[in-house]
């Protein structure tokens, strides 16, 4: 395989990271926390879609993923009602949701790997064999990011979202429904995580043990170029896909599997991520 082939494959594979990274970035902007269950939403969507099958399955899968995120959003709201304003507690709760969802899948469907073939033929681009599914993944990711871009930059809702992300107190005073926006962000996380899960289902597949590393990959992609901007997540996801493809091509399997985690460690170790954004958080 050639260098350009690795790049191309990396870009296609990275589109899934994009879908996982965008919700991380959105949630971090609006709630300043992490939803560890995003990977679990992906698993739930894939498992349900695989077992139901067909277009109905896809709808059911997305529904299940959004339902999972709705549960998380409800817990978030309850925590807030009970006077918890600690972002690490929200993250911890999402951890519980992730564990519970993965266990539910394990209980219902066992340890099987969820994987479906979509296209049997491959396309060829300048001599490089590429799978149509990969292209579909990339297109989906681009469409999702574009829609988000339009919503956030152009609509009234987007303006409110940006305001809420920058200044919660001020936005509340200005009558912006901050809490509603935060809940909405959790739900968008469910939807995007679900879409990612479906794409994975038709690409490499996944099993009940996947969620946590999916979440982590998404987060790694989200912070590479700065977490506060969902559009940078696009490039972060693609960059991570490329890094992984290059690692697969030129290094060992070990390094390849470590790529997302090393990405994360290196970015965290070199950036001022904590200082600038949530440094005051350790209350």
């Amino acid at each position: 395989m050639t260098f350009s082939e690795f790049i191309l494959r990396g870009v296609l594979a990275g589109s899934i990271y994009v879908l996982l990274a965008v919700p991380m970035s959105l949630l971090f902007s609006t709630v300043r926390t992490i939803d560890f269950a995003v990977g679990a939403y992906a698993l739930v969507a894939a498992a349900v879609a695989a077992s139901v099958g067909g277009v109905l399955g896809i709808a059911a899968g997305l529904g299940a993923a959004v339902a999972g995120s709705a549960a998380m959003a409800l817990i978030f709201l309850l925590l807030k009602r009970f006077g918890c304003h600690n972002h690490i507690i929200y993250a911890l709760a999402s951890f519980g949701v992730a564990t519970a969802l993965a266990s539910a899948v394990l209980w219902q469907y066992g340890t099987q790997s969820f994987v479906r073939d979509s296209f049997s033929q491959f396309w060829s681009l300048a001599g490089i064999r590429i799978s149509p599914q990969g292209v579909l993944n990339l297109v989906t990711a681009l469409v999702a990011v574009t829609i988000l871009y339009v919503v956030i930059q152009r609509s009234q809702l987007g303006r409110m979202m940006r305001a809420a992300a920058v200044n919660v107190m001020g936005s509340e005073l200005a009558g912006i429904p901050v809490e509603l926006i935060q809940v909405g962000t959790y739900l968008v996380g469910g939807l995007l995580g679900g879409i990612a899960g479906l794409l994975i289902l038709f690409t490499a597949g996944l099993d009940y043990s996947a969620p946590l590393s999916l979440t982590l990959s998404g987060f790694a992609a989200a912070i590479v170029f700065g977490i506060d901007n969902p559009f940078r997540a696009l490039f972060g996801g693609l960059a991570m896909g490329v890094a992984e493809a290059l690692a697969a091509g030129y290094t060992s399997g070990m390094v390849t599997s470590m790529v997302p985690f090393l990405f994360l460690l290196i970015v965290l170790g070199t950036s001022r991520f904590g200082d600038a954004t949530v440094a005051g958080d350790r209350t």
Partner: protein
Amino acid sequence: MTFWANHRNTLIAIAAVLIAAPFVASRPVWLDSAVILGVYALLALSVGISYGQAGILTMSQGAFASVGAYAAALCSARWGWPPFTDLVLAMLLPAVLAYGVGRVVTRLSPLATALATLALGSVISIYIRHADDLTGGYVGFAGIPAIGFIDTPLEYAVLAWLLVIAVVYGYENLMRSAHGRALNVLQQDQARARADGIDVARSMSAAFALSAAIAGIAGWLYAHYVSVLSPESLDTNISVTALLMAVVGGAGYVLGPIIGTVLFDTLTRLLPAAELQGLFYGLALVVILLVARTGLMGLGEQLIGAARSGLGRRAAPAAGLPARAAS
């Protein structure tokens, strides 16, 4: 008398173990569970020190335990070290690793630190999976010898709970020292801690290293007891479970993690299917975060406080169980 005042938790742990001992010793199956429970209790305690005291939401305790476990396996089975000498390496290796990583990641926000521990744990477990020569890769490692004369489940159970008690004792010592107080302060308010002259990153890293060493002890014990290891033996799942146990029991209290461990273990036995374990753990975590963020120990303390004031009695000075009210 002062020992009682300073080491309430240790004495309570000793008493509980002594009370449970006759019942447990009467059934071989329970003895086996007691060893595994001891391993989990050590892991949960390690989370208590890291998260409950230093505020590092750690998700790498399973990985540290597996480093300890493989160290034990290599030293005893392959290199023929005498019994117990491998414990030093099993503690030192994770501690050094944790300290090094801690110095970098504890400068970050708590969330970022948590993610970094998760990533670190994943890197370690991937390494173990791929380092065929050292760890046996996916196949694993078999034939790990017993620890010298310690051979029967009874002896392992005694060892396991002696270790738990020793850790509780050391934990209590720490919390009654300047370093323990420093952890309490920096967890709540880093600026305050710095004004006291506390090097935040250093203190947190030291606590993280201690917690990793304790996880290493758990792994050491596990390896020798079970005698086989595979990458799945002590994976991220174990890290998560230990974290949930500690939080549900009360991570800020010395004995909280042990309470959580015992509770989870008991309730797991009542579950209809083993696969449901994660569902139950996750729900337990969510429920405890909603109703009592300080865990069962915190809830207990509140209830006792309420009962006391309800009876109109003067509240006793806060002492004993909670680590942070060391007076």
